[in-house]
Each structure stands twice: as structure tokens, then as C-alpha cells.
């Protein structure tokens, strides 16, 4: 899948489960919240 991750572009939607097993979809926040996406390196 080719997605352009660049300033001014729409961020691609995704869905992941949070730590309680609830699914979190990026587009759920649309129109509601600004989002900070932090991609972590890992804890180990």
C-alpha cells in the first residue's frame, strides 16, 4: 500500500486494540480531537 505521509496530507486511517482490548480507530477522532501520534521504539 502506497501512502503519502507528508505535511498537509490526510493521515491514513488505522485501527488497533488498546490495552483494555477496545478497538481504537484513528477516524473516530475526526472532528473531535487533535492527535499526537507517538511511535515508540519499544520498551526492551
Amino acid at each position, binding site marked *: 500500500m502506497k501512502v503519502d*505521509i507528508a505535511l498537509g496530507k490526510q493521515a491514513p486511517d488505522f485501527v488497533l486494540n488498546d490495552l483494555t482490548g477496545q478497538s481504537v480507530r484513528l477516524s473516530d477522532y475526526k472532528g473531535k*480531537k*487533535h*492527535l*499526537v501520534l*507517538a*511511535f*515508540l521504539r*519499544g520498551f526492551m
Partner: protein
Amino acid sequence: MRDDYAAFTARDAEILAIGPDGPNAYRRYWESEKLPFIGLPDPKHTVADVYNQQVNLWKLGRMPALLVLDKGGIIQYEHYGDDMKDIPENKVVLDILDKLNNAGSQ
């Protein structure tokens, strides 16, 4: 980011922290660090790959990255770290959110 979480929420922002570890490791870390924001395990790197394939920065392994999206889901800021500690300061991110809030006050 934990200590400034209230500053983020006050600016109408949510933090999604996406990481390569599995749910159990993630949960342990979250509980031990008492992190208030949303943790999203991505052990198959599906989201990380989508967000980084094009920039191709994972050659040396997974480096931290940070993006700010406005309420329309538009990318307003992106920072791809050069090493493990290369993460923008909270103040930088909070300033961006302030700008978004000032610009989008319609």
C-alpha cells in the same frame, strides 16, 4: 509526555502511543509508568509500516517518530527521530497545538 498530559488535553488533543511490543509487555510498562494516555500495541508493525514505508527510515531499526494531526486528520507536523532519544520536546508539540487551536477557531 506523561507529566504534561494535562497540557495536551487542555489543548483538545489526545495522545496515541503506538509501539512494537506485544500487549502484555505494553500493559506492564503502562502500569509501572502510570501512563495516562492511550497505548496501542502494534506487534505486527502494521501501522508503523504504513506510516514509514515511504520515508524508509527503519533501516537501522525502529526509531521514535511523532506526528501531529489536526481535527480533520491532516498531518500538521512530523518528526522522525535519528536515534532513540531524538524526540521533540513537549513545548514544540504544544506550540503546534496552540497554533491549530488559534487557526481553527471558526
